[in-house]
């Protein structure tokens, strides 16, 4: 086929494709759909949005500032109940389980980050580079367990009460 023929054929195919697309009536608007399915499964092709310094430090979500006072044992006890019901199936304090051990989580992350991870896990898994790395290690995405902000605060207080020194955290089975 000569170059001229080739050009004509290619042009015809292109126009035909364009016409077909016009026929189809697709608006193309759905291309920008969410990169995360309702099940929290991440599309690996998604590019992490550029995060602010505050988001990298405190996570992505509704919590921007937590005021920690003295440890409140009553709150921590209530937080333990919530943790037992909704979190303990996957997280232990001193050992790697379905998810990472949490016995030193407050050495690694700010209280705001911890609460945002509880309250907004889908977006954290999708966009935060630290959480994306965790997913690559653990393979099971952190699910949304539908805690209220108050419940997440109680769990934070429980985690404060359950933090362990560095050497014992690595001594888990």
């Amino acid at each position: 086929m000569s170059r001229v023929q080739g050009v004509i054929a290619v042009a015809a195919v292109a126009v035909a494709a364009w016409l077909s697309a016009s026929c189809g009536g697709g608006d193309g608007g759905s291309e920008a759909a969410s990169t995360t399915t309702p099940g929290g499964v991440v599309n690996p092709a998604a590019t992490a949005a550029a995060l602010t310094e505050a988001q990298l430090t405190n996570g992505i979500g509704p919590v921007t500032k937590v005021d920690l006072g003295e440890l409140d044992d009553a709150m921590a006890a209530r937080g333990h109940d919530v943790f037992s019901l909704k979190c303990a199936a996957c997280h232990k304090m001193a050992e790697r389980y379905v998810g990472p051990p949490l016995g030193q989580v407050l050495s690694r992350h700010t209280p705001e980050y911890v609460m945002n991870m509880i309250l907004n896990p889908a977006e954290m898994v999708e966009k935060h580079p630290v959480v994306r790395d965790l997913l690559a290690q653990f393979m099971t995405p952190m699910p949304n367990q539908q805690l209220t902000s108050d419940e997440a605060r109680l769990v934070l207080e429980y985690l404060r009460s359950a933090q362990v020194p560095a050497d014992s955290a690595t001594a888990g089975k």
Partner: protein
Amino acid sequence: MKTQSKRTVIVAVTAAAVLGTLAYACRTGGAGAGGVPSDVALAVYVAPGQQDEFYAFFSGGFSGNLTVHGLPSGRLLKTVPVFSQFPENGWGYAEETKAMFNTSFGFIPWDDSHHPELSQTDGVPDGRWLFINANNTPRVARIDLTKFETEEILQIPNSAGNHGSPFITPNSEYIVAATRFSVPIPNRDVGIESFADDFKGTLTFIRANQPGEMRIAFQILVPGYNYDLAHAGKGPSDGWAFFTSYNSEQAHTLLEVNASQKDKDFIAAVNWKRAEECVAQGLGSAMPAEYAHNVLGEDRLARSEMLTSVTVLEAPTCTDMVYFLPTPKSPHGVDVDPTGEYIVAGGKLATVIPVHSFSKMVVAIANKEFEETIDGIPVLKYESVMAGEVQNPGLGPLHTEFDGRGNAYTTAFISSEIVKWRLGTWDVVDRIPVYYSVGHLSIPGGDSRQPWGKYLIALNKITKDRYLPTGPELAQAAQLIDISGDKMRLLLDFPTMGEPHYGQALPASIIKDRQVKMFALEDNRNPNAALGEDRAGVERKGNAVHVKMTAIRTHFNPDNIEGIRVGDTVFFHVTNLEQDWDIPHGFAAMGAQNAELLIMPGETRTLVWVPKRAGIYPFYCTDFCSALHQEMQGYARVSPAGSSVALRWGTGGTWNTATPVANDGN
């Protein structure tokens, strides 16, 4: 070069021809396969990621289920199990659901569901619930449309063949149930030839607008005919309900000949507000009856109660309650137009579609224009109540729905077509063939005060050559027809599950944003729930072994169990600890002689397992839940009867042997 130029021309001409064809098809909707214009593809195309405009609910006929489709795509979205056990999600197999199948005849695992009916407010479908009938062992069910789940089933006593059901009144005050088969009432051992003396029909009114408390308000005893279908009045005719009957010949054998002798049978017009007055005045009688009422409660546990009495009304003692409208000829459907004035009969064997006038009926009753009285029921004169007859409506007219623009659409079973005609002039204005043998039809809201008259669905019994063949039984099907213009246009065929007997549809916007996404763990009241892994455990009570198990992505706790013995009955009580939308976990155990469990987030369901032989039995999650779904498994060890292997269980290598901490509140 010459040859090259020639080739160039050929390529260019071919390209131009292709472009021309595409452009033409695009512009005009040129004819495509099967004589269907090619532009109809656009009318039903729902692009990937886009959602349908309507929900359509089709009865599964002899499947006993309900299927949910999207329109206009026809895509199947869900099967909602109702009257038939459904191994796919454990409905009727999981201990928490078994009571839904209780009847006075015991546990009934199957039925034949025909007519879905949406709840209404002010005569308009409101998307709260959908009701559906069971034909074989007479029952009605209520399906909640925030969960797409059957929540309530009420048995109908003094009935046989609950076909004329569950049509609804404009504010969901009542759904109705009419006996297709007349039987002795109360049922008893009599000679079949005593039909004319001993067999009766009943028209039952069931309170419908109080969820969990469906109750039979009253039953009306009527002559022993076959009562087939019904519709409630609306607008001016609100307060009335209309039931077709056939077999006024009272044949009890070879009905296809013997029940087609008379020129006319009857539509029974029931003044249900008058019936309410009679009940209030104590004119009814309490008749002993035995019938089950089953409710899936807020606590996700099905419970069953056996009721023992119904209030029965009879025409001689409650006058002005029932009238017969003579109607040719073995009428099938009875459909009331959106204004409430016209009562359209599907004169199955008639050559016309007879239409009665509600206002003429009221005048005729006032003037006592009666032909005769049967068992205390006045028979009005046909000419006194008839509004008109549609001539040449096709062979075998069965059912009619409306578009809200003064048009009626009637199915013709024998001639396989939909006939469009005008209310008031009775002129046929359009007709379209359907493939084949159409029974019901459905327009969204098409039996209500306010149809959404964009689409019509033909529900066809026979498809013959329309689909790839599949052995002796071929698909049954729906066909989507565009009714927005003057001429009906066939848009789409799509197969349906079971027999697509009748369907109802409504705009998706009414219910799609009201969906229950999960059940809160905090609200889980199942006495066998393990609310947290620290509550999981195993307990032996004699030969019963209760396993309180948790499931979360991606493991069970416990996932190793030892100490089960042949002769034990094992109860797997599995609690799904997820609180995320659309994360059910499944549970299946090798050798289980029932089904799997499918456990919604926050819910507990129980599978009974009776291992027959010693050995190791894997169990696993059946619903693909995460990247580590294949790791979501466990082992149960079964030892011989009398074995001394200790009962122990665990997950992650730690074995437990003590009875777990009792769950607070249980």
